[in-house]
């Protein structure tokens, strides 16, 4: 028996350790919950988290000042505890903020304010002036930054429709300069182009968006070396050849919406989105990965496991890590919404779905956002309980 035990111990020690994500305790980001206070972590591409220097920033919108406005909370990357929220917007109302890290603790946030997209540089110590990026009616801005390169894309009202445009940004101290905004797709505006997401690569930029010109919503992608001229749009979501609706001659495609991109800054770009090709159980979280800077994407992959199949998945976010692409979303498989995550170990191989302590359980946890930075997976979400709602955060490491 002793020999058997010794043998099992030796075998156990010889096996490679099964690494997994380990998360810190959840922290409050947006202050204490209050009655009638409604924080929202929503933006084009779900870009509400960024890191710069030794700081992490979370941006969101809530109504603590009597109308929807945009706020940021900052935290040291290696120490728990967020500083008190700072207001970034200054108009009647503001929505859908995104943020990117610059350098030395400076950040660039952009959002919709009073019907136009604006941006502001900030740090823990100072805020620059609000800079209007488009004089036209505009919304749904998304940002990406890598090194000195910063690029923005947003929807500009063109007649009846939002049309996707993009522009390079430069930052000098706390000042922002915007280059010319050009249409991503040069063909005439015929219907909506919505909720874009950008990722910077070592060869330029990748972009994905919702496009309604085909009589239903498609997800399209394009790439650019300089952000001025974009490649011909390519379809991202696959359309099943057979469906009960198609057999009846109804409609042209399943529902797809809210695509988010993330990259590793080199050649890998991952996309996640909500996809209703299996419409009886609502949206599923689908993903596709590019290893050529966004020029082409691999086959569509369902990110969630079978235990989530009977429930709809909402609000997918994505991060590219050295340990695989990570997708996060919320779904109510345990009756109320919880944050669920899955790690892509290899092509079409996703882990079992897993939860994070504090981001699942009593109340509701939804609207996750993700960032991979500094060897940590940063996760924020909205918690709703009996006391009200609150943005929360946890940090994961692979161990």
């Amino acid at each position, binding site marked *: 028996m002793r020999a058997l035990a010794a043998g099992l111990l030796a075998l156990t020690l010889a096996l490679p350790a099964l690494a997994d994500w380990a998360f810190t305790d959840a922290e409050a980001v947006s202050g204490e919950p209050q009655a*009638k206070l*409604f924080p*929202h972590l*929503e933006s084009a591409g779900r870009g509400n988290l960024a890191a710069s220097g030794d700081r992490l920033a979370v941006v969101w919108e809530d*109504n603590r000042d009597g109308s*929807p406005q945009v706020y940021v909370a900052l935290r040291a990357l290696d120490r728990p505890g967020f500083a008190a929220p700072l207001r970034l917007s200054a108009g009647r*109302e503001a*929505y859908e903020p995104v943020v990117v890290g610059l350098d030395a603790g400076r950040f660039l946030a952009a959002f919709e304010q009073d019907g136009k997209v604006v941006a502001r540089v900030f740090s823990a110590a100072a805020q620059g002036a609000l800079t209007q990026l488009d004089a036209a009616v505009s*919304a*749904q801005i998304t940002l990406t930054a890598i090194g000195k390169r910063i690029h923005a894309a947003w929807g500009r009202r063109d007649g009846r429709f939002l049309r996707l445009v993009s522009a390079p940004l430069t930052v000098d101290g706390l000042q922002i300069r915007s280059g010319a905004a050009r249409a991503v797709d040069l063909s005439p505006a015929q219907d909506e182009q*919505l*909720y874009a997401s950008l990722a910077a690569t070592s060869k330029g930029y990748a972009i994905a968006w*919702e496009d*309604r010109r*085909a*009589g*239903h*919503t498609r997800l399209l992608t394009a790439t650019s070396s300089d952000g001025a001229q974009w490649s011909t749009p390519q379809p991202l979501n696959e359309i099943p050849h057979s469906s009960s*609706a*198609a057999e*009846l001659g*109804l*409609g*042209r*495609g399943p*529902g797809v*919406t*809210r695509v988010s991109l993330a990259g590793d800054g080199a050649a890998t770009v991952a996309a996640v989105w909500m996809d*209703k090709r299996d*419409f*009886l*159980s*609502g*949206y599923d979280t689908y993903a596709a990965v590019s290893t050529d800077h966004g020029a082409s994407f691999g086959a569509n992959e369902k990110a969630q496991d079978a235990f989530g199949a009977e*429930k*709809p998945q*909402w*609000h997918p976010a994505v991060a590219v890590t050295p340990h695989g692409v990570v997708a996060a979303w919320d779904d*109510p498989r345990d009756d109320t919404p919880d944050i669920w995550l899955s790690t892509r170990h290899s092509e079409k191989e996703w882990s079992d779905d897993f939860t994070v302590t504090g981001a699942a359980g009593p109340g509701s946890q*939804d609207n996750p956002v993700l960032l991979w930075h500094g060897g940590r997976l940063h996760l924020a979400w909205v918690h709703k309980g009996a006391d009200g709602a609150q943005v929360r955060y946890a940090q994961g490491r692979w161990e």
Partner: protein
Amino acid sequence: MNALTRLLALATLLFAAAVHADPPAGYAFVPYDEGLRQAEASGKKIFLYFGRYGCAWCDKTNKESFSDAGLKQRYSDNYVLVYVDAESGTRLTLPSGERITEMELGARLNVFATPVFLYLEPDGSPILKVPGFKTVQDFRDFDRYVQGGHYRKMKLLEFLAENPA
């Protein structure tokens, strides 16, 4: 423009209209918060139609059910008609004062497929939710159940079993 060109243009227009699955033509659908205001003022119940751009089953419902003149009259008389695009970023205000997008309203009401039809009290509280394609007779039955106040006493299926059309 010759006759063939005109015919092709008309066919294109009709095809484009057929695949968009917007609210059915000829109905006075209004946005969600405008509908709540109208319902509060009038005391009418709300008929809330969750559609989706390009939604095949919404298109079928519009063409085969909402084209019925009697149904149109009945629903226009009995309800404040509200249409929500389940994937739209258009914002609305909830009775709590919270501003959310139309898509977020769908997430909170668990609108997992489209079309979904909700019948609401004038204050916005839910009475009945029915997903998927429905016939003219289905919509007449739901209307009898809701307008007659039967939902306060029994489930829909019990009502229909006891009160067939």
